């Protein structure tokens, strides 16, 4: 099976999964306590206004009818009104999602750049000082929650040393780049605005690192285990017996197969951040989608809750497909197996 056929098939299967997810979250959101219309309008709003909002949101209809309206709206650009911001959820998504995507992408870069070399070094020198050092770092990274890391970074590197800004996406005295993608760094590069680019990167470093530390710790351990396992494989012993230099063995023949489990976890970790970044976004007052999701939950904002969960679901699906493609690239046996299945 060719890669693109495989991707199309996976997309089709994923569509079914997303449909199931949408039904599930739609029903769950509606059995939460409280009348969303009354919650949105407050106790003093006239009942007539509450009733009008209920009608607008189709809350008086059966759940399956509400679901039908929602599903139709998804394809026509009407994602429903968010009670929290009082506007179309689609506008909210397009406003807040890029900030979170940018944060997650930077966290992903930091994660990859640190976790893979750490794991490789630890695995190649198993039980050495390097390995033990990486082990301790990994335990700390896994055990300490990201919000604690965020607060510590903010206090020491933001407040204490003034090396990094405490909050926000960009300094108040810097004009944000003209919006193209919504990712400040990318937009700044596209519009040739180096000042905005540097300032955005400067703002990204602390929250992205806080977000990345947990995954770094986890993936460094997985990479290390994978490297140790592959060191005992026949192909490695054969390369050693042929006298290939250690660096060649490590980077050319050992790293590739060892990356397979790491990449799988890496993709899942990164895609999970869309829903998990809310504490980081709260601490750094990052105007992102994850924090928006938290507010939606707290105010029983039905349309926003469903949108947040669905976007997170789509991110997982995309990440999984990409992982499958990357793993297929890294491991020829998987590609061959797919062709055999075809």
């Amino acid at each position: 099976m060719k890669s693109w056929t495989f991707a199309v098939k996976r997309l089709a299967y994923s569509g079914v999964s997303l449909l199931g997810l949408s039904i599930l979250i739609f029903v769950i959101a509606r059995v939460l306590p409280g009348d969303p219309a009354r919650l949105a309008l407050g106790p003093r709003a006239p009942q007539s206004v509450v009733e009008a909002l209920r009608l607008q949101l189709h809350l008086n209809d059966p759940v399956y009818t509400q679901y039908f309206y929602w599903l139709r709206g998804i394809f026509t650009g009407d994602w429903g009104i968010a009670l929290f911001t009082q506007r179309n959820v689609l506008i909210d998504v397009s406003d807040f999602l890029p900030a979170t995507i940018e944060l997650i992408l930077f966290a992903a870069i930091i994660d990859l750049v640190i976790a893979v070399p750490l794991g490789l070094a630890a695995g190649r020198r198993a039980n050495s000082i390097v390995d033990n050092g990486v082990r301790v770092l990994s335990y700390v990274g896994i055990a300490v929650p990201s919000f604690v890391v965020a607060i510590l970074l903010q206090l020491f590197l933001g407040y204490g040393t003034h090396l990094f800004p405490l909050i926000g996406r960009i300094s108040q005295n810097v004009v944000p780049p003209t919006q193209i993608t919504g990712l400040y760094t990318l937009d700044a590069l596209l519009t040739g605005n180096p000042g905005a680019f540097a300032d955005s990167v400067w703002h990204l470093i602390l929250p992205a690192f806080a977000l990345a530390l947990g995954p770094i710790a986890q993936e460094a351990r997985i990479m290390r285990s994978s490297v140790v396992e592959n060191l005992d494989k026949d192909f490695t012993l054969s390369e050693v017996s042929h006298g290939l230099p250690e660096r060649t063995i490590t980077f050319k023949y050992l790293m590739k197969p060892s990356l397979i489990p790491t990449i799988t976890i890496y993709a899942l970790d990164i895609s999970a951040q869309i829903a998990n970044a809310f504490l980081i976004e709260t601490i750094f007052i990052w105007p992102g989608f994850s924090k928006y999701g938290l507010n939606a939950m707290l105010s029983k904002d039905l349309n926003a809750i469903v949108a947040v969960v669905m976007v997170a679901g789509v991110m997982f699906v995309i990440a999984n497909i990409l992982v499958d493609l990357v793993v297929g690239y890294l491991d020829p046996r998987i590609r061959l197996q797919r062709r055999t299945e075809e």
Partner: protein
Amino acid sequence: MDVRRFQKRKAIGRSVIATAVVVILVVVGVGAYYVFVPGQGAGTQTTTPTSTQSTSGAAGTLSLTFANVPNADPAKGSDEASSAALANLYDSLVFPTSSGTIQKDLATSWTVSSDGLTYTFTIRSGVTFHNSDALTASDVVYSLNRFISVGQGYSYLFSPYVSTVSAPNSNTVVIQLKKTFGPFLSALVRLYVVDQKLVSSHYNSTAPNNDYGSTWLLTNDAGSGPYQMSSANLESNMVIKAYSNYWNGTQPYQPQTVNMIGSSDSSTVHALFTSGQIQITDQWQPYSNVLALSQLKEAKLVTIPTVNEFYLMIDTTKAPTDDIYVRQAMSYAFNYSSVINNIFPGSKPSAGPVPTALPGHNPSIPASSQNLALAQQAIQKSKYYGKLTNYPVTYWWVTQVPSEQKMALEFASDMQKIGVTVNVVGQPWLTVVANLAAESTSPNVVSITDGASYFEAGSVLQSRYTTPSEGTWEQNEWLHNSTLDNMIFSALSTLDQTQRFQQYNTIQQQIYNQYPTVYAFDVYEARAYYPTVVNWYAANGHPIVLLGYDFYFRDFQFYPSQLTALFG
């Protein structure tokens, strides 16, 4: 693969890595140059910021935190941040004063018909909106009609009373009421005038009722107030800047730019205040945090009165709290001073159902205090005395406010002294709201803060103790008392203020005598601020206690040079 090909690929790989490193170094170097060298950088400007997602502080900007980012639609916003933003972005017909009265604002004069049903206002001439459109009487008419049609925010103050509103000429507005409403002029501080032409041009034709321009007004303003909106991000902050053509002029030291940050996260606020990036903290900080911040160099702690009160709302229909003697005993047994001193420091004792700072409060009602002897006497008169163990009291506290748990445990401990068993249960706010909707699902006691929307006791009495508020989070007492309803609505319809206040006094005494509520304390906002940087009237003993009006920035005096001297 032969060795030469391998070496060639290796060389290419090294070149790629080297190039990437050089590119990264150049980018970082250029970036660092732009960021760290003062006065450099294509993206740096020294004028007022116009960014849409800028949060970090800038010199010359007064920055402060709120619980959330304001909702700047005058027909929708009603929380503290929104009320503060609206007071600065928009003008109203009248304006509240620190003495609890109102003064002229857009209205230069007014007359009231003898039956109290017709109000005629003369509108100030020469007022312009921020886009230079002239403000006329028709804008006032449009704003009131829009307000009532949207039906949200503070519109409940007008929708039951206003019959028609018209503009016989460009500087006269006539408001006809369906029934008399004594505090109508006080309530008018919440009618913010929008530019009809501008708002109408931003209607969303695909939304129900064209959405009345609401979506546009969330991130733009159509007002004539002393400040205009510079930028708004609904997840982070709103920046407003002084309007140079304000009809009442500008003040010499008013802040030119104000950054209203929507975050009350303790660690963030701590770091921001300590580094001088905000100059006033929000009211939602734990007292220990505010106290610590106020001990910084040049910082100060200030407690500002509000028109909010912390109530322990008692269900008067469920056993054993349906017995007045049980409720009376609870009121006497509760250790108010412990709560005020240890859990909510800075707050003050309450005295009955109306906050003491609110005009119309009955001064003859004594401040709440513990008296165990009287509590014992009351409980012995109860029909449940001797069998109270069969009637445990359910007490709900809102889990979003952790300090409430301590107060709940204090309550349970105090009630043990009179033989009442209390089951303390933490509930999320949504669950509290949902369950208070029905008498059958509400608890014996629930702790909630509530307050006034306008400058009179009637505001609280109506929202807390009339039958229409049953089933909302504002009442767990379930009084079902039509006599009390009639008294409250009669007072609200009384035009003469002296008579109205007398009626308020009688009503408060009557409610107090029924012990439907434990009046825990009057809420005082505890904040840390830098007095040398900000001269703030509310902190200097002249607060305008109406929600949002302690932040009328035109009356602030802001000294950026002091800020620079403190923090560099």
